[in-house]
């Protein structure tokens, strides 16, 4: 049902967005470049100040730049510190059910406790 194939509705949405974005761009150019007096003589007196035609793109670019740094910082803050139990286990591992061991069957998937993993890796088997 949800395929990315082209549909007539999607073609119409795409064309409407295409026309809308061209209209918005031409409107932005008119607002930014046509002198104020010419706009007043046409009767368009209540448009925002032209200052914003430069300020908004500047704000947007700075916000994108800060966004990169902010995302990096949020990542570092959400990383569990070395002394938290989140590095060892979590709610799903604590509540997991132990399935019965069946002969000749692949053992069920489960979260192995860290003590057991350590013994297997670092203590030599006799």
């Amino acid at each position: 049902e949800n395929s990315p194939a082209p549909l007539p509705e999607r073609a119409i949405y795409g064309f409407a967005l295409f026309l809308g974005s061209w209209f918005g761009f031409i409107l932005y150019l008119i607002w930014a470049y046509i002198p104020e007096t010419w706009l007043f003589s046409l009767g368009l007196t209540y448009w925002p100040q032209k200052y914003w035609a430069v300020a908004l793109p500047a704000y947007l670019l700075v916000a994108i730049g800060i966004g990169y740094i902010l995302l990096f910082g949020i990542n570092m803050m959400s990383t569990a510190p070395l002394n938290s139990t989140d590095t060892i286990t979590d709610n799903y591992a604590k509540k997991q059910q132990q399935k019965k061991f069946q002969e000749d069957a692949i053992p069920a998937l489960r979260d192995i406790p860290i003590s057991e993993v350590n013994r297997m890796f670092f203590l030599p088997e006799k």
Partner: protein
Amino acid sequence: MEERRYRSASGAPIALRRRQHSASCRELAVRCPRLRLRSLSAATSAAWLAAYGLFVLTENSMVLSAAIIITLIGLIIYLHFVKIDQESLLVIGSLGIQVTSSYASGKESTTFIEMSQVQDVVINEAIHMQKVIYYLCILLQDPGDPQGVSEVVPLFQSSKPRLDCLIEVYKSCQEILEQRKTAPQSS
């Protein structure tokens, strides 16, 4: 008593010293590299050059005296609170585990964990800054749940030994911790 050289996670040379006091008591000490005269002189010269530059700009001689005082106080604070000389782990089989950090100024800070609170000593991997490091930690028992872990106490935080050194420490600790399973004393 033996001493072996290893490397820390950042590449600095560290030394591990193992002492066996008795069958159920072991002491493992990791010694960090000492403060180098080169880096100390470099930092001091950089600070004083910056202060002299400020003095040339502002023509205020207080900048120079302030720089000297800040450098001295900064060095004392660094040696007393930041620079760790040696971190040691004393495992006593039936009693507990003692963790000691000795600072460069001679200060020692100790933590003792009773054996009944210790569930296990394991090597854990975690993300630290932009790296994934191995570190040794003590898992403390959750009083309500025998399998649960209530707290994680990371060890050797300043020296950050690499996996080869950690495996040696881990094996030594496990030899003592296994004894409490095979020979449970009263309570």
